[in-house]
């Protein structure tokens, strides 16, 4: 509660929160503001024709129609819901894997730690986007394969971070005391160490939400993410690629095709980064200035 008040007093943090609340509301009321044509598959975008030239905003289509006549408003609204689902899933799973491995490694030390850290190193050697792109391409065009690809190559920073914290906390008096009186290992890890080690992870996770959404959208943009008619911001932007330049004499002609999805993804990501920056300053003054990228 105190944290929240401090966050709201910080102008950048407050901006982040307001934006996130907005996106959350959009995601929740999506079925009311953009009723799906196929209620069983709400993420499938309805098309209003088949010709490729986009059409400007008009009654019934407030953001216009993209190339291939998909409703841009519908894509943006349901894309918001998809962005939330994907980023929460990916960050949650990556953090869970990373926390588990990092804690086990740091607490047991020795060979276990060595092996886990070398595995972390190996996964770190892959450029995130390229590796995720390759795995997603192999696994096929579904949300699930995108999520798996992002988690597979995205858990390492959590493992390293939590490992450092656990190593530090292991030597702290109250943990030593807990050990001395015979508290079982899992209980020490879960009750004594984790609650104190979790904050830096929390900050990193916040910052990560934005970059996960970017990378997921990048997969769709590159054409390895989702099926073509799936409501996703990256997909919407990729529709607009051939229409950046209007006909001569009217360069602004197709502005709506990329302005709306581009703004949505940038603002979503900005909101998380602002929140993360502010959280870092507030939660842990010791971290001020330390890098948590």
């Amino acid at each position, binding site marked *: 509660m105190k944290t929240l008040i401090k966050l709201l007093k910080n102008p950048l943090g407050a901006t982040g929160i307001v934006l996130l609340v907005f996106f959350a509301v959009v995601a929740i009321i999506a079925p009311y503001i953009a009723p799906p044509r196929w209620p069983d598959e709400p993420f499938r975008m309805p098309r209003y024709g088949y010709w490729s030239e986009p059409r400007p905003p008009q009654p019934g289509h407030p953001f216009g129609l993209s190339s291939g006549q998909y409703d841009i408003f519908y894509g943006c609204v349901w894309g918001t819901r998809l962005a939330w689902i994907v980023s929460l899933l990916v960050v949650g799973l990556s953090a869970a894997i990373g926390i588990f491995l990092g804690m086990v490694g740091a607490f047991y030390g020795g060979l276990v730690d060595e092996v886990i850290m070398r595995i972390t*190193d190996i996964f770190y050697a892959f450029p995130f986007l390229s590796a995720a792109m390759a795995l997603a391409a192999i696994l096929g065009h579904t949300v699930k394969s995108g999520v798996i690809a992002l988690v597979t190559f995205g858990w390492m920073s959590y493992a390293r971070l939590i490992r450092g914290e656990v190593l530090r906390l292991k030597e702290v008096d109250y943990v030593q005391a807990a050990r001395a009186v015979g508290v079982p290992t899992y209980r020490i890890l879960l009750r004594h160490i984790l609650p104190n080690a979790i904050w830096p992870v929390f900050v990193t996770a916040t910052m990560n939400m934005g970059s996960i959404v970017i990378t997921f959208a990048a997969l769709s943009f590159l054409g390895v993410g989702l099926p073509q008619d799936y409501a996703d911001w990256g997909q919407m932007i990729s529709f607009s690629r051939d229409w950046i330049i209007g006909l001569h004499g009217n360069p602004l002609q197709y502005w709506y095709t990329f302005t709306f999805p581009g703004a949505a993804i940038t603002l979503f990501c900005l909101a998380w980064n602002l929140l993360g920056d502010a959280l870092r300053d507030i939660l842990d003054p010791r971290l001020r200035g330390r890098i948590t990228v």
Partner: protein
Amino acid sequence: MIAYIVRRLLLLPIVLFGLLFIVFQMYNLLDPFQKLAVFVPDVSRLKNVDPHLLIKEYGLDKPWWYQFGRWLNNVIHGEFGWSKTANRDVLDAFKRFLPQTVELTLWAAIPIILGGIWLGQLSAVKQNSAIDQFARVFAVTGWSLPTFVAGILGLFIFYGLLHWFPPGRLSTNVGLYVFTSGKFHLYTGIITLDAILNWNWWVFADALRHLILPVVTLSYVSWALLLRVTRSSMLETLRQEYIMTARAKGLPERVVIKRHARRNALIPVATIAGLTIAGLMGGLVITETIFDLPGIGRWAANAARQFDMPALLAYLLFSGFLIVIANLTVDILYAVIDPRVRLE
């Protein structure tokens, strides 16, 4: 220090093996027919042949460890298979596409490193001033802007509206002159460098004009990291006692910052800068795709879209290898520069 370097070098084979293992496991997700493409050196071999025979021949129905051995053997001999998107052998395709990627990386490295350090230093020296706030907001917006949105926005403004910086590698007539006229000798394949070697300034100017937009886009989205690292490192250094001493003995602030603080503050920055460049080279997928630059990134993106697995896996191996080597170099350099690292 020798012990540290030896220990670090001993880890190299383990990490490299792990890299190969993970890439193999991704390959292993494919079915035998898809795997064939990675083994067959030339598409003509696939014509009029029963694929089942080839699967037997290459042992693709055997257990995974057997396949891993064969695959490793191929990789070590530089046989990565046939890339259908490039319509040539994977290694040939690499040779063809790599110069563009190297060129873009080198040009982008200059503003990314210098600009990032400059912004970070400025922001640290004037901590909490308007400049600091502006630099940080600038960086966080860049960090939040996806490369493909930034790229499209750049193209929209500077190509669509202003017609200043077109996409592609060279203008059509210049491209014809460079690649088909025979008057332009391609020494390295890096057009800007070759133009200097040929003493041909209009080719140089044209190549540079096509590079500006991707370089600016890359810089804007990558500055945040370097800015943050420089800023925090600089802030930490400025609080050290020797800086206070330097100030106390009456050195001008400019000298204190440039000679005393910056040199030490840049040590961690050098690490991040090195890794950023290595990461850049293996991660130009989006930039090259948007700006239509024929580098390995665009090739990999096409490969992913068209399920050209030999190309994709080779690309992944290459970019992973690059980062492993960069990591190693940076770690060793770090130990040479900063004695504290060796003691840990």
